[in-house]
């Protein structure tokens, strides 16, 4: 046995909410037409950073892989040689893969990184239609070359002592040749 209130008032009351909302600003985001910036410290896709001369900061120590709770990171280290140098010091990461099918973007890896080689960007568009493309290789993760950076392998341009890189002491001493050229042209 329904009361008079249930029969007449309740069905109309719901439309009251609808009516009120008509005068409010909509919360719906028009993604992907409009891309709103994330919070500045949002955990997005990883990035492998470079020293100001373009050498890689990653030393292939695998601490990120060790820290990863989802086992999403695979690293193989290798020796730098005099002819082929990718990072200051003895060791660099020859293979670096992050599997974004597994990654939960928790950020424990970037906390573990001893050289601040691994950080996270705000890029969140990590979807694809096949599994292979979601395993990001080192080439996908490396930070872009900024002005003054040279694509490794090359010798240490900042200082002959690799400790100076970590101390951040003498950056940047050597200017790349092309930078000098463009300066003259100006």
């Amino acid at each position, binding site marked *: 046995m329904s009361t008079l209130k249930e029969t007449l008032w309740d069905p109309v009351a719901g439309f009251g909410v609808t009516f009120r909302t008509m005068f409010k600003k909509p919360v719906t985001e028009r993604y992907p037409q409009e891309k709103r910036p994330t919070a500045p410290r949002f955990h997005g896709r990883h990035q492998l950073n470079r020293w100001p001369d373009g050498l890689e900061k990653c*030393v*292939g*120590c*695998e601490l990120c892989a060790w820290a990863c709770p989802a086992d999403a990171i695979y690293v*193989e*280290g290798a*020796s730098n040689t005099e002819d082929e140098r990718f990072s200051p*010091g*003895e060791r660099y990461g020859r293979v670096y893969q992050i599997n974004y099918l597994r990654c939960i973007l928790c950020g424990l890896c970037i906390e573990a990184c*001893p050289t601040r080689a691994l950080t996270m960007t705000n890029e969140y568009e990590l979807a694809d239609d096949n599994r292979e493309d979601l395993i990001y290789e080192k080439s996908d993760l490396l930070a872009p070359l900024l002005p003054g950076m040279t694509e490794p392998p090359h010798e240490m341009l900042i200082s002959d002592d690799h400790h100076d890189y970590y101390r951040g002491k003498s950056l940047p001493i050597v200017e790349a040749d092309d930078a000098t050229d463009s300066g003259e042209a100006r």
Partner: protein
Amino acid sequence: MTVTEPGSTEVTPVELVTLTIDDVEVSVPKGTLVIRAAELIGTEIPRFCDHPLLEPVGACRQCLVEVPDAGNGRGMPKPQASCTLEVAPGMVVNTQVTSPAADKAQRGNLEFLLANHPLDCPVCDKGGECPLQNQALSHGNGESRFIESKRLFAKPVNVSENVLLDRERCVLCQRCTRFSEEIAGDPFIALLERGAQQQIGIADGEPFHSYFSGNTIQICPVGALTSADYRFRSRPFDLVSVPSVAEHDACGAAIRIDHRRGKVMRRLAGDDPEVNEEWITDKDRFAFTWSTRDDRLRTPLVRDAESGELQPMSWPGALAVAARGLSGTQPGVLTGGRLTLEDAYAYAKFARAVLGTNDIDFRSRPVSDEETAFLAHHVAGAGRGVTYRDLDRAGTVVLAGLEPEDEAGTLFLRLRKAVKNGTRVVAVASHLTRGLRKLDAELVSAVPGREAEALAGLSLGDTDVVLAGERLGLAPGGLAAAVDLVGRAGARLAWVPRRAGDRGAVDAGCLPTLLPGGRPVAEAEARADLAAAWGVDQLPDTTGRDTVGIIAALAAGELTSAVIGGVELADLPDPAAARAALETAEFVVSLEVRAGDVAPYADVVLPVAPPVEKSGTFVNWEGRRRPFDTALEVSGSLPDVRVLAGIAEELGTPLGIRGVAAARRELDELGAWDGARAPFETARANPPAESGAVVLDTWKQLIDDGRLQDGADTYRLTARPARLKANAATLAAANVEPGGSARLSTERGAAEFIAEVADLPDGVVWVPANSEGVNVRSVLAAGPGDPVTLSDSREERA
């Protein structure tokens, strides 16, 4: 081997000493160090330099403890290093657990050690399995007060091609130098300089070339010594560790295989106090890449009738072709010396029950009837005989036809330990090698081939041991003289073969005169016994042909087909003749891990699994079974037993065993032969006649051109140089100058070596058998005891 010592299990009474550690009373044998007495009550005192198998040195000062009572009522005024402190009755020791003073001393010491230690754990190979890292966390201060700059060294330094030294990381514990001096006897690495500049190093131009150098990498408690091969390859937490057994010699050394994503990254010494303690040779450690070379066989190959080329084929197809080719032929079976016990048993059963022949031999090397008889009488199915531990107790160990450092590295280290404990080593050999010198061996000089005379001149006591190497079988009367020698004295005899599978193959019956378990072919009862167990009507009753006989019969057409597993033709007495024989054979089935030199003659090549990809058992020279499990599961990688079972099924006579476990079970059920053993004549054989020619002595060095060392390039760079050795008179007679180039030749070929003067008898030259690209057997078709011609190579060219 046959002679067992009844009293070998007696327990000597030990004098116990009672002391108090951390308020706990504990009784330990007299002479125990406090650091180990503390372990017995469950207290681990931090340490770096202390190693149970090395002499105490007290170098790192990390194990400081407080001793309020040294056992005489008086306390020690300062904290003491517990690794050099022997227990005393009534002693009172307080470790870091109960004594704040000990704890403070340890923390302080660790801070000192870390003052100059670089913070490069992320790039250090030891990181994650590092005693310094672990103990800094468990017993160190969280903060460092050292703000000055750390001492820097150039790094890394190659102390040898294998071993890299990072002096910044070193805590000067001297484990490496003590190992090299005490255990390996190669003191090529030492402490240099003084004070803050004190460092480990080598002499100029004298690299750390030791057959055992890899052990220093493993015992280094920091990342100061690292492996050049393993450098930056992986991290401890990536690795899956599997215990296994080394496949390179007959010592059965325990190893640990560390693999990552289906690839073996490194091998480490296992810990087996009865066998290899914690040491292995560099060969066992670094030579593991051979099974993953490009020439690894992955699919069966069958020779195409039209093109004459080997073509890939499916397993069922290839097995059917092999069976069709073998049926109706007279086969001979050569198994090589590298099989596991189970695989060898499968070959033995396959030859007898399926092919119906006794023409099977595992020896891919020169053989003698005397050796065959010796193996049947003394070795086959005899179980465990002389053990490593017995060497410690032996008064004298006689080495005959055996160079332990090259041919049985683990045995060499145990002998060296025995020598330190007072055992005397007598070597019946052509000269005192570097290895024999390290054993303080007494040389009983013998011209190769005439060892019997030297052995006859010896006399032994009843605790003594004779170790007969593989080469003694080539000396006429050599094994007979050894048996006679131990028989006279009541001493004991052990046969030390070179290859991991040799002893197992003898037990499994891969010999023309022996069935599995040491059952003689000649005994009707043994044959009937085995036929019943195998469920076959009868077994072939004629004694088969040995390796030499099989090759000759193949060449003569008496045998028309061959089943060959893991044999290198270059090892056979006459490689050229063996090639010709296989060319003549109608049908050749080859079971191989990698395409070898049999493949060009094979009609069917069937790939089999290397030891790392299968389970099995090696029987070491003691007769000790050394089982191991599959380390890497690789689909389609089949053990020999499975492949042979496949051929047998296609032939219509199933083998009855299809896997390693079944083979092991069946072999265990069969047991050893308990009837009369085959006789062995110890009558004196005639020594070879003096021909006046130069006599060759040769054996394979530990690090050489062997196929099981392929791919281990840095390791092979540590090989000893190939030098021809002879005494000054012999060299002068041939007009060869020491240091000059000498030419060694036979009718078959010639090889050149750099000559060196050594204490060999007149008219004897020694060369390594397979080093620096010269395989003596292939080039000269000669082996130990054979006559060769020595000349100056310049003359030949002129």
